[in-house]
């Protein structure tokens, strides 16, 4: 699937790119990160976070620096995808018994289908990432609601019930916020650029 030939608002033709399965891009960099890679990733994201804060407060010179980081670190998106996979794996492990490999596999496949459905046709890398977040937060809601339901049948203290309720509320908020962000990006149209690996994805709308 490519976006070749589509022209943006400014008339700029989109650069071709090969689409990859949602959440499971076949990229060598998706291998688990080494300690050094993790530190470098954290440092880059931390710097990006600071710059985003500054830019949102009106510091104009932060924006070119953000562009520079996004251009210089095209693997950030894959790294995030990697994190999503790790998070999902941890949630699935908690939801199924250790030896129940069939259930784990089934869940992984169901989530992959869900990711594709949420991401929609021909998603931009950012949409794909946001779709991954929607699915991961949905899974978290399921996990905490499931734990709460099973704890209710086993019996729990008021403090424990309160803890579970607060966890469920937070998970719901996270999920709604993830859905809102995806809807927002779609509403704004594909005018957002993001660098992926060696390929510049430019979805000018």
């Amino acid at each position, binding site marked *: 699937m490519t976006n070749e030939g589509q022209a943006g608002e400014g008339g700029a033709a989109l650069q071709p790119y090969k689409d990859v399965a949602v959440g499971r891009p076949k990229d060598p960099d998706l291998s688990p990160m080494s300690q050094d890679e993790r530190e470098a990733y954290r440092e880059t994201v931390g710097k990006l976070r600071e710059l985003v804060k500054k830019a949102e407060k009106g510091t104009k010179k932060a924006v070119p620096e953000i562009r520079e980081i996004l251009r210089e670190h095209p693997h950030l998106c894959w790294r995030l995808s990697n994190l999503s996979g790790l998070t999902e794996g941890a*949630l699935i492990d908690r939801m199924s018994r250790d030896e129940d490999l069939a259930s784990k596999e089934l869940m992984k496949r169901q989530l992959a289908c869900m990711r594709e459905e949420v991401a929609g046709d021909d998603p931009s890398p950012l949409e794909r990432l946001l779709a991954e977040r929607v699915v991961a937060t949905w899974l978290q809601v399921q996990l905490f609601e499931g734990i709460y339901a099973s704890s209710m049948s086993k019996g729990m203290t008021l403090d424990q019930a309160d803890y579970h309720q607060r966890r469920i509320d937070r998970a719901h908020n996270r999920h709604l916020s993830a859905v809102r962000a995806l809807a927002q990006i779609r509403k704004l149209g594909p005018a957002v650029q993001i660098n992926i690996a060696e390929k510049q994805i430019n979805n000018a709308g």
Partner: protein
Amino acid sequence: MSPWERRERGGLYYTRSRKVDGRVVREYVGGGVLGELAARMDAEERRRRDEAAAAWREERDHLEGLAGLLDGFCEDVETMTRAALLAAGFRRHKRGEWRKRRRD
């Protein structure tokens, strides 16, 4: 304070202390075999409660760890999204919707 109280006649008497309306109330259970049995039952109950509390702490730490993992991922995606929007020339209007920045 030991739950075993020495009586005037020399025998040991097992007691339980509990709080009622903020005051400590001592309940006299009995001496001899009855006291011994009550002491064992209480010890067993305490052990069961300690185990349950430890299990709950472990469970809560595990859940917090899972939630923390997802929170970290969500925050990074949020950062990436905002960065991409800012880089594409959008600005956030009053901490709400994103609007395309007008070219000066």
